Structures are given as structure tokens and as C-alpha cells.
């Protein structure tokens, strides 16, 4: 056994963004499947939503490396 509680925390912190990213791309896919011509409009929105959701997971990754005294 190795690692510490930050690692567990990071694992928990990725659950939310994972669900969020899944929901975003599910909505994107169903949107494009219904209206393929809406793709250029939807894609930047999907990418931005993905970035904003993924940002939360990255915060966890960065905070894992920050030494808290």
C-alpha cells in the first residue's frame, strides 16, 4: 500500500467532471444526430463545455501536487 489521502481525494474529484463530460458529449451527439447541419454551431459549445467541466478535474490534479502545510 502506498499513496495518501490526496490521491483518494483526487479520485473522488474526477467523478463529477467525468459525469459532466459524459452528459455534454451525449447531448452533443444527439444534437448532431438530429440536425447534422448544426455541427459547426454545436462543436465550439461542446468543446467549451468540455473544457469548463474538465477544468474541475484538472484542479484536483494540480492541488494534489501543492504542498499544504
Amino acid at each position, binding site marked *: 500500500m502506498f499513496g495518501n489521502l490526496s490521491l483518494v481525494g483526487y479520485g473522488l474529484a474526477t467523478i463529477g467532471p467525468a459525469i459532466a463530460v459524459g452528459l455534454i458529449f451525449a447531448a452533443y451527439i444527439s444534437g448532431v444526430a438530429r440536425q447534422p447541419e448544426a455541427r459547426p454551431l454545436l462543436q465550439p459549445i461542446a*468543446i*467549451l463545455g468540455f473544457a469548463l467541466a474538465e477544468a474541475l478535474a484538472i484542479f484536483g490534479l494540480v492541488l494534489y501536487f501543492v504542498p499544504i502545510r
Partner: protein
Amino acid sequence: MSERHLSDAEHRQGPSEFVSADAMGATAVAYLVTGPMVFGGLGLLADHLLGIRGLVVLGILGGMALSVYTIWLRYGMTGTDPQGSDESRADTTHEETL
């Protein structure tokens, strides 16, 4: 070399959607990791040198804001096709796709 010579349907439409989406995701994540890491690291260094606390948080949040802003600059513009097909490459100005 001429376009007519390569009339296979799948070769005309650029790389597979799935794979290019994967590639774009990789690039977006590269931006997202870089911002907080670099500016958080700078904040940590500044904290250490000045003997204060709090600049780390500022660095991480500011770096993340910069990352999201850069992604918005490169991919968030509606109307351009971020897939990077030949046609859009000709008329986009600064979005180097991916």
C-alpha cells in the same frame, strides 16, 4: 496528387471524426493542464520566496482562466470549422486547428 485521382469517399472527408475528436481532446487537455500547472508553480515559487501564502491559489485560478480563454480563442469561435479540413484551413486566419 490531383483531387480527382483520389476519389475514395472516405479519403475526401478528412480523418475519421472519432479520431480527430480524440486528438482535439488531447490538445484541449494539454492547454488545461499547462495553465494551472505553470502559473500555480509560479505562484508557489513566489510564495516561497516572499514568505507569504495565497499566491498559489491565485496562480491556479488565473492559470485556469487563461487556459479556458485560450481554448475559447482557438476552438470557441462559431462559424469556423475546428476539424481542420482543407477548405476551412484556407480561410481561417489564426486558428491553427488542433
